């Protein structure tokens, strides 16, 4: 079946503008995760959804970052008033229902490369 898809694949924006990044998980995966990967860094966890609710949003770096998920499927990560330090690759992953077992395999999308000028 289809894997995790993300759009756009690349986004260039000007400082101060808002951006929306989209993630479409694998069908049947109720858990969805957003990560940020900056140059030379590992993966930084941002937020986790189980269904439409976000039990863990501890990784969102500031109140400029928000995310929502509707219909238990597609998720949108929104960054308001973008700053140059927001430039990074934003990765989305999905997994089967996560009972906080830590053992659910996450499957990743190709990422959105965001450049803030």
């Amino acid at each position, binding site marked *: 079946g289809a894997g*995790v898809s*993300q759009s756009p694949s690349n986004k260039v924006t000007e400082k101060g503008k808002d951006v929306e990044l989209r993630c479409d998980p694998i069908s049947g995966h109720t858990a969805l*995760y957003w*990560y940020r990967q900056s140059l*030379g*860094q*590992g*993966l930084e*966890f941002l937020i*986790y959804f*189980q269904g439409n609710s976000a*039990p*863990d949003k501890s990784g969102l770096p500031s109140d400029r970052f928000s995310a929502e998920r509707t219909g238990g499927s597609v998720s949108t990560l929104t960054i308001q008033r973008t700053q140059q330090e927001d430039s990074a690759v934003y*990765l989305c*992953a999905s997994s089967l229902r*996560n009972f*906080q*077992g*830590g*053992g*659910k*395999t*996450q*499957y*990743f*999308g*190709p*990422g959105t490369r965001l450049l803030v000028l």
Partner: protein
Amino acid sequence: AQSVTQPDIHITVSEGASLELRCNYSYGATPYLFWYVQSPGQGLQLLLKYFSGDTLVQGIKGFEAEFKRSQSSFNLRKPSVHWSDAAEYFCAVGFSGYSTLTFGKGTMLLVSP
């Protein structure tokens, strides 16, 4: 808090030579362990995972990894590296009671002819 260490930022291996990438984690509980590979401009692809049972696990593309509880390690190995293996490799750890994975900073593998 849990953490994952991949001590080698870059490794260069000759094509056909063996490979070992190191991964250590810190936490007291039994971990769930993963290795992912990321080619340039791509997302992360799962190579293999360990949940329980046999501590030597086989993955795709001829990779294997061994969980050593006494050393808190989960090193990735391949007996003969191919040029197409050049990529960045990430170790990740999950624990019961935590909803997501903790990733290491990655090891970039370069393959020389």
